[in-house]
């Protein structure tokens, strides 16, 4: 009986055990946890930052090759199946997956920080730095993150909808592991996916909590003590746990859709109230620079000057996207049943990317406009505290207080909806791919997410969050390389006309 339970719940027990150990270590010996994660993080960055760059470029090339090859016509489902959602509904949901705390957190601050602190071969706060800042913001949030999501979601969708296997990462390993996917080897793959999801989501939740805290401090002069940030995490946890446990998913879905509409309106408002022609010029020229330099950007780690810059930004982002990929990948897979591989890849790679470009052009471009043309000192604020940049930026617009409140509302809802969805995904990953997740698992994963976020915030704040995202993503990156291989095997067995 016990043996059967252990076998059935192997992924859940193992991953929950590891996360619990991590949280326990963070509480009992934060110094030891900090030192251990620093060593692992440094070892990964010192030896494998090139692997992150080359792997992500490979994922992009692989996804495009599949889309444009004869396999592009294969359906993610049975041949006669039709897409479950209409094209526009599907695209809207892709937007929802792509938008989140990150866009609000980094939309203003990333271009400003690159502008102020570019690699050593570019003069700080120069026009070159502005161009570089926008180009790299596009690059970090552009087609590459979506290529990462594409690999995971395409694999899950192919193996579960077309090959009839459970929606688990381990299912995609059948061509290499065979029946061992039901044993320790398969469990290990799923544990790595859980591990990446927990730390990737906790990183985003940590960013969200930091920014909500900064917003409240900025608006209401709230204390900047870490205990307030922890309090924010706890309140948000209570909200998303209530939603996950009480089964108010429909309410959350409505809230989520409202949030997207509100975010789009927020974007339009900033564009309308600011210098639209300047922003549109920033968009156009950055898009041109991005397309023109995409190969160089993809593989550039600046080994001769600016290596640290590349490690701190590009490698961090790639790791962060990779750690998010099981979560986003599962979501995108679920809504894409019935699409062809070509339609899926080309839409996922282009539509959300274009939206993100517009977002960065509007927020980053407007911030740079204020900085360069109107003498605002936003870059210095962002350089000091990235979480404060958005609110300092909104100060330069009419109804700044109201806009800041809207931003806070958006952040809170993104926090709650992301954490709620992550809880369900983690529950599903640890319940053999089932969508019906027992409440106790939702509770455990919800609490774990918050506890990990708090532990990371307490042990080192922002840098600690970034460090864990990179560390947790590393093994999953290797899993993703194998996913490409197994997907190729699966597709090669298809009879394509």
């Amino acid at each position, binding site marked *: 009986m016990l043996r059967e339970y252990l076998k059935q719940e192997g992924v859940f027990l193992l991953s929950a055990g590891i996360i619990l150990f991590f949280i326990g270590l963070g509480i009992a010996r934060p110094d030891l946890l900090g030192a251990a994660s620093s060593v692992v993080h440094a070892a990964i960055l010192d030896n494998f930052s090139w692997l992150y760059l080359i792997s992500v470029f490979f994922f992009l090339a692989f996804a495009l090759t599949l889309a444009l090859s004869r396999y592009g016509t294969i359906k993610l489902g049975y041949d006669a199946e039709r897409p479950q959602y209409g094209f526009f509904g599907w695209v809207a949901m892709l937007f929802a997956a792509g938008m989140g705390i990150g866009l609000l957190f980094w939309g203003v601050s990333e271009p400003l920080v690159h502008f102020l602190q570019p690699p050593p071969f570019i003069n700080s706060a120069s026009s070159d730095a502005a161009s570089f800042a926008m180009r790299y913001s596009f690059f970090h949030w552009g087609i590459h993150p979506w290529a990462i999501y594409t690999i995971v979601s395409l694999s899950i969708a192919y193996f579960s909808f077309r*090959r*009839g*296997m459970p929606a688990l990462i381990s299912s995609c390993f059948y*061509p290499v592991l065979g029946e061992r996917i039901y044993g320790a080897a398969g469990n290990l793959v799923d544990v790595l996916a859980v591990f990446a999801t927990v730390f990737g989501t906790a990183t985003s939740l940590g960013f969200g909590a930091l920014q909500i805290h900064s917003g409240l401090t900025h608006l209401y002069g709230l204390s900047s003590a870490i205990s307030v940030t922890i309090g924010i995490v706890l309140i948000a946890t209570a909200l998303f746990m209530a939603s996950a446990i009480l089964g108010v998913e429909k309410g959350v879905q409505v809230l989520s859709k409202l949030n997207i509409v509100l975010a789009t309106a927020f974007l339009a408002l900033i564009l309308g109230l600011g210098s639209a022609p300047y922003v549109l010029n920033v968009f156009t020229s950055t898009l041109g620079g991005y397309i023109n330099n995409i190969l160089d950007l993809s593989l550039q780690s600046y080994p001769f000057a600016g290596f640290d810059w590349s490690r701190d930004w590009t490698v961090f982002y790639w790791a962060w996207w990779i750690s998010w990929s099981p979560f986003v990948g599962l979501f995108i897979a679920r809504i894409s049943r019935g699409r062809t591989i070509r339609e899926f890849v080309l839409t996922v790679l282009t539509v959300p990317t274009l939206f993100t470009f517009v977002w960065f052009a509007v927020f980053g471009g407007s911030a740079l406009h204020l900085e360069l043309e109107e003498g605002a000192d936003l870059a210095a604020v962002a350089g000091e505290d990235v979480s404060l940049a958005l609110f300092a930026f909104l100060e330069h617009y009419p109804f700044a207080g109201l806009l800041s409140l809207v931003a806070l509302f958006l952040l809170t809802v993104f926090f709650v909806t992301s954490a709620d969805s992550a809880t369900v995904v983690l529950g599903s990953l640890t319940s053999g791919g089932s969508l019906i997740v027992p409440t106790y698992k939702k509770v455990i994963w919800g609490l774990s997410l918050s506890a990990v976020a708090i532990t990371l915030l307490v042990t080192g704040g922002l840098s600690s969050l970034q460090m864990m995202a990179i560390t947790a993503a590393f093994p999953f990156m290797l899993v993703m390389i194998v996913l490409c291989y197994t997907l190729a095997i699966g597709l090669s*067995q298809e009879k394509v006309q």
Partner: protein
Amino acid sequence: MFEKTLVPVAYGERPEELMKIGKILRSLGANAICLYHVNEPGSFFRGADLSWLTLLSEALEETGLNVEAKTGNGHIASAIADAALLDGFDAIYMKAKRRWHLETMLLGSVSRDLLRLADVPVFVHKVRPRLPGSEAELDRRDLKILYATDLDETSNRLLPYVMEFRGAWCHLLHVRGRMADPLAERARQEAVDGELHAVAEELRPYFERVTFEQRIGDPAGQVLYVSDQIEADVVVLGRKSPAFLFAPMGDTAERIVVGSRASIFLVPQPGRRNAS
């Protein structure tokens, strides 16, 4: 299969060794043997006295075989492959020689070149079956044959060769990749079992025992593993040109020939004419 066999020889070959080879070939059905020596263009021994070749022929004739000696010129492996094809030989016999890996890497190997270039079947004699003593002869009824088949159309061409070995035990092996899902895998497994069963039925009149199995994994590795497990005397396999991307890793047949302790009977792809 071995009725008219070409045996490449080089200066320094010992008559007693060649006589053992003769016995083996005779027990495998050889009637006539051609000792073939190639003069390399830059060789130190080029144009030297070839009386040693006559001595070898005379020694081999004592085993009761019709023996002739011939010489050729040019690149060794190409010349042997050309002679075998143009003079209508049934097979080429080669005794594998132990060479250091570095030496093979630097100088290349005639055997490997020949495996790549030959258009007639090549028998590479390795550790098994053991060369008989001076009196004893190899009893082909004791032979254990491992037939590695791809189960495609070209593999059918190998069947008559396998049948001619007529040994004690023929073990059929099919190595393949795993299908992408359990259902497809089960269906493939059943289909392959059916095909192997059909081939086994065709071979049953020629062997005391016929068995079959299918394995998943790297073909060369699996063939070598099974060959060692059953202590096969001869591995019969077909040879295909490797796909472009896999060429640098060496082709399956070549890897089997290098790693095997059992002898290899390698049948080239039909209709393939090499650039030799």
